[in-house]
């Protein structure tokens, strides 16, 4: 028994303990959850170190000792390890930020258990090596996210949850059908098994059909054009701490699963699908950044940016060379940190100005130079100004695109970057630069200071990625190589599954 089950089990147990043992919100419960989140982060780091010491060779666990087609396997390879670390880190920071955001007496009793449940679903999605188990993990994650979305929504906003729910339930039904189809075609739901059988079938139309169905499902989750419309309207109804969590992780789960499916599970010869994906990615980044320009409150602008940035990641996947996959992984690492920290900075601004509508904000640069510096660093990083982390991510994607002769798509990506910078300047000018609104700016209270510190920690990590781009990229390289190496993955899973699976 190795420790692969704990990244899933620990949040579940925390959620249970949190709601059963403690019951109502209190300081003790907060400390307990924060400690558990920190423990999860340490565990993820420990697992990541173990994986990368083995050069990204996957670690495997058979749950309950069941063999091959009957049991479920958990697999941890380089990419999954990176994603686990990021997920647990963001969850820790967001939980701490939510403590500063809401005083204990106003806290919703279900909020912390649901956040932990969400982490459990996300972690299981990263770890699972089985298509149906992936469906279950997705559902755990989605159900927790539905509940959190509506938990604190007011009467005006709650209707925005309906499109989110409707689109995602539709996606779930489609996922179930795709899983059924995959079982009928391949006779198994184990990903390594599917990889073996799909490789035997080669270019069969039915394999492509399953891939396209799965891409629609995960495209809904990731927010690829034309499936993103549910996202920019529903995320702004979240409070900033939850918004940081959702924007950092939920869409990236979709990107992760697309990577997993295209690189590890299905054959690398689906050129038509990569071509289609690349154009959809180009449209995603352009249309979404135009949406961001049209919005006039911070959460709205940032929500559209999530979608636009997804475009870059999917573009990198669609180029589909080992270097492009490594660039995509690097971009995901950069993006999760930057996006969440921008949300946290926006949330701190909300407390200074008591509003996040740009018309009613102002004077933040004078009130808090530190916050202004943090925002400027992260906004420029999002737009891709060297030497910040976003520059390296974009540079790698552009370089692989130019290498493949995809000039139009790279041009679209550059244009989208410039528009990103403009929409970030919009926030900067309105919230930070212009004089304070009539109500003035709040004095920095202890919670606001704590929020600034948390945003600062995230910014430091992000700066670290920018200045230490080389080691981070080396990690992405190792992760990408083991992700693309299907035989290594199969070997790791089958050696655990015993002789029955070998055929």
């Amino acid at each position: 028994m190795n420790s692969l089950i704990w990244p899933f089990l620990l949040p579940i147990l925390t959620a249970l303990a949190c709601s059963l043992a403690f019951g109502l919100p209190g300081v003790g419960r907060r400390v307990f959850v924060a400690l558990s989140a920190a423990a999860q982060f340490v565990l993820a780091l420990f697992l990541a170190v173990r994986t990368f010491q083995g050069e990204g060779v996957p670690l495997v666990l058979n749950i309950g000792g069941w063999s091959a087609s009957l049991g479920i396997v958990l697999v941890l390879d380089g990419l999954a390890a990176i994603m686990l670390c990021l997920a647990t880190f963001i969850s820790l920071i967001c939980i701490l930020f939510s403590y500063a955001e809401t005083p204990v007496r106003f806290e919703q009793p279900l909020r912390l258990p649901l956040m932990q449940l969400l982490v459990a679903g996300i972690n299981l999605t990263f770890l699972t090596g089985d298509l149906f188990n992936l469906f279950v993990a997705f559902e755990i994650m989605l159900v927790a996210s539905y509940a959190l979305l509506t938990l604190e929504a007011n009467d005006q906003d709650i209707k925005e949850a309906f499109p989110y729910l409707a689109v995602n339930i539709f996606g779930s039904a489609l996922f179930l059908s795709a899983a059924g189809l995959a079982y009928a075609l391949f006779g198994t739901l184990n990903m390594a098994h599917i990889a073996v059988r799909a490789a035997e079938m080669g270019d069969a139309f039915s394999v492509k059909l399953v891939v396209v169905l799965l891409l629609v499902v995960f495209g809904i989750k990731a927010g690829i054009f034309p499936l993103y419309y549910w996202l920019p309207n529903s995320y702004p109804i979240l409070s900033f701490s939850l918004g940081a969590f959702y924007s950092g992780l939920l869409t990236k789960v979709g990107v992760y699963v697309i990577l997993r499916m295209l690189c590890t599970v299905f054959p690398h010869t689906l050129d038509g699908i990569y071509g289609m994906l690349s154009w959809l990615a180009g449209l995603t980044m352009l249309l979404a950044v135009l949406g961001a320009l049209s919005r006039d409150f911070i959460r709205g602008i940032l929500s559209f940016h999530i979608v636009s940035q997804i475009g870059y990641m999917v573009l990198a996947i669609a180029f589909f060379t080992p270097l492009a996959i490594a660039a995509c992984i690097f971009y995901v690492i950069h993006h999760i940190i930057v996006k969440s920290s921008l949300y946290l900075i926006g949330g701190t601004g909300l407390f200074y100005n008591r509003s996040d509508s740009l018309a009613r904000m102002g004077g933040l640069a004078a009130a808090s130079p530190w916050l202004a510096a943090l925002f400027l660093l992260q906004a420029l990083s999002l737009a891709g100004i060297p030497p910040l982390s976003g520059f390296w991510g974009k540079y790698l994607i552009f370089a692989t695109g130019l290498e493949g002769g995809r000039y139009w798509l790279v041009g679209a990506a550059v244009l989208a970057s410039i528009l990103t910078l403009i929409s970030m300047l919009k926030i900067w000018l309105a919230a930070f630069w212009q004089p304070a609104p009539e109500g003035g700016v709040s004095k920095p209270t202890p919670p606001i200071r704590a929020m600034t510190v948390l945003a600062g920690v995230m910014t430091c990590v992000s700066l670290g990625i920018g200045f230490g781009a080389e080691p981070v990229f080396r990690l992405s390289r190792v992760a990408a190589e083991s992700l693309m190496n299907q035989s290594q993955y199969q070997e790791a899973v089958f050696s655990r599954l015993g002789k029955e699976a070998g055929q």
Partner: protein
Amino acid sequence: MQIETALLVAFLFGIATYLILQKSFVRILFGFVALTNAANLFMLAMSGSPEGRSAPIINDSPLPSVDPLPQALVLTAIVIGFGLTVYLIMLLYRIFLDARTTDSESLFKSEAGDE
């Protein structure tokens, strides 16, 4: 048996699509109920034709049993679908209480008017 199931799945998916595209919440809700059931039935049909096979439980039947895995999977999927339906009903009821309408078009139009 397979043909009938396939027709039923197609019929359910068709009904679901039609209902989800309606304006009224109640119809959309029924659309989602039909959709989850269509997906469940599709999953169940993947265990192959049940003719000439026995149920996948311990019994004295000499016949080979049907593939039990899709049946196990569909149980999970039914539970999840049921939970989602209940949640959807509660959400739509709450929206109805707040907005006093079950017409999705007027619900989102009034918001566009405010901005």
